[in-house]
């Protein structure tokens, strides 16, 4: 029973970490290894996987170059559009809103997130479809406005769908921002805009970076919104993966794309953290 204090601490740490570690190994590491193995194999004649050791799937990546390109363009643009909408909301919630109403307002931001994105995206199909906004526009004499199944609709859907994920980290970083720093800035002669650019914005950068990284990464795997609001006319990596696994059952090629996507995500993450460190001078990027 003789156990040193340090030994006990290690044992406790081990017990605390074990469930998460086991979870990660079973549901993240092992599947990822499987996907790497698959990606080096060949497609069986009737679909699926057939063991092999070849880089052919990776050589074939250019066949999905357009999907990669669309995704790598959409993800940052979507994230930035999200940011443009989310920042003022987060700023209002954290800085301007009456503290009495703050909790309620924050809940209002979060609550829609509890319902299925599919259902909420369906709602947008009606809002943007001809019975929605275009129908209202006809009342004021503007005819034949098409919103649904346009890049604009995709952008709206993405901004809407990912807004809470962008608002929350920014809100958190703005909320813990010391108001005296803003007073200090004003005291030192900075106009409100200078204070915002010189103090508020840099100090909320960890939240901004967290939000942007989070939304960008999720957007790299997005396929539902472009499918529903973009009319399936824009093809993303997510769509390519779904088609390869569920339609043409080319698991090795799908795996190679998935592995590549994971690498892209890692690069994006590292980039975001470096940028956050440079801008905010802090190593903490609270990646949820």
């Amino acid at each position, binding site marked *: 029973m003789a156990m040193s204090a340090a030994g006990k601490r290690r044992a406790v740490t081990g017990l605390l970490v074990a469930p998460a570690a086991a979870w990660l190994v079973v549901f993240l590491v092992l599947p990822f290894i499987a996907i790497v193995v698959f990606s080096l194999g060949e497609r069986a004649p009737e679909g699926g996987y057939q063991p092999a050791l070849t880089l052919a799937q990776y050589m074939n990546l250019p066949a999905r170059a357009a999907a990669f390109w669309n995704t790598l363009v959409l993800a940052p643009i979507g994230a930035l559009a999200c940011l443009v909408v989310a920042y003022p909301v987060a700023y209002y919630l954290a800085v301007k809103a009456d503290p009495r109403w703050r909790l309620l307002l924050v809940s209002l931001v979060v609550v829609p997130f509890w319902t299925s994105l599919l259902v909420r995206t369906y709602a947008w199909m009606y809002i943007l479809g001809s019975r929605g906004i275009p129908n209202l526009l006809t009342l004021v004499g503007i005819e034949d406005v098409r919103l649904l199944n346009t890049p604009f609709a995709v952008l709206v859907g993405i901004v809407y769908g990912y807004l809470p994920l962008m608002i929350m980290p920014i809100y958190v970083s703005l909320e813990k921002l010391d108001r005296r720093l803003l*007073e200090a800035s*004003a*005291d*030192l*002669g*900075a106009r409100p805009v200078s204070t915002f650019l010189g103090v508020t914005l840099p*100090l909320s950068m960890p939240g901004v970076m967290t939000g942007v990284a989070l939304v960008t990464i999720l957007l790299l795997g997005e396929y539902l919104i472009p499918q529903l609001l973009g009319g399936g006319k824009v093809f993303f990596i997510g769509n390519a993966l779904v088609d390869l696994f569920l339609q043409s059952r080319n698991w090795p090629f799908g795996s190679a794309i998935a592995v590549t996507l994971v690498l892209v995500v890692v690069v994006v993450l590292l980039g975001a953290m470096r940028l956050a460190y440079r801008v905010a*001078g802090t190593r903490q990027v609270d990646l949820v």
Partner: protein
Amino acid sequence: MTATHPNDIEFRRVVKRYGAVTAVTGIDLAVPRGAFVALLGPSGCGKTTCLRMIGGFEQPSEGEVLIRGEAMTGVPPYRRPVNMVFQHYALFPHLDVSANVAYGLKQMRPRIETGEIARRVAEALEMVRLDGFGGRRIHELSGGQQQRVALARALVNRPAVLLLDEPLAALDKKLRTAMQIELQSLQRNLGITFVLVTHDQEEALSMSDLVCVMNAGRIVQMATPREIYDRPADLFVADFVGKTNILDASVVASGRARLADGSMVAVAPSDRVGAATVAIRPEAIRLARKAAGDLTGTVTNRIFLGATAEYAVRVPGVGDLLVTADHHATSKSDLIEPGEAVALTFDPGAALVFPARSSA
């Protein structure tokens, strides 16, 4: 900004209300150019509100604040020729020391050229003895160093008035004493008006030229530290500033009062006759080892303080009195022991007469 105006800061009938609560109740105040003024009072007395109204972070509900003769009503903080050293300093954590100090210079229009900014930042850091610290991050600095960065950041802009909000509260006692001296000499050398807010009477008395004692949203007394200490305007000041024995008494004639135990003592002359309160500083009382006199008691406690000793003396019918004795200065080589009977004497001028306490 008229350079000839004698007062850097003026308050004219300034009232500040927060909803139903009145924080500042009609204050008139004038801070002469080049003065080091301390706003002293217990928490909630309105001193910080006054400072924030000078800084522009609060607007008076009534009346006006003038800086160098100009009304500041509606003037935002960034247009006021004052700078503040905030409580807990409010340094920018994302900027290094140099950038913190340069912050105000970079806001100035017309723009100051980069080389000039660097020169003035270096000068300011040298002034607060932080040369070579420019590249440090704020969280790498000690409390005292942060305090000096905050000073440099404010002073580098050469404000008309420097506002200091409890600037030493976060420092330990030794550092606080050192910074008190440093602040005082800085103020002397720069000739900039300092307005300091503190709840620490010792700090206020030791640093400033003028102490403005506040209570419940009013200015109770504004005077030199010496005068505040020796001639407190009322019982509150007497009690708040330094230690004081407060005795219920009845003035029978100017300069003569009867204490609660019936003994007659000589006090400072006053117009008042009848129920009153007498305040005597502990160091104004002398102790003698004898059982008889006008005022006698028994030593119940003694605290040795090095250069002095504090005695608690129980005077039957009057109460417990605090007496500070400079024992090295007395001819008696030995200290008075608890339990000994003593006679208490004081100069009549040191026994100040105030109106009776409201509870009496």
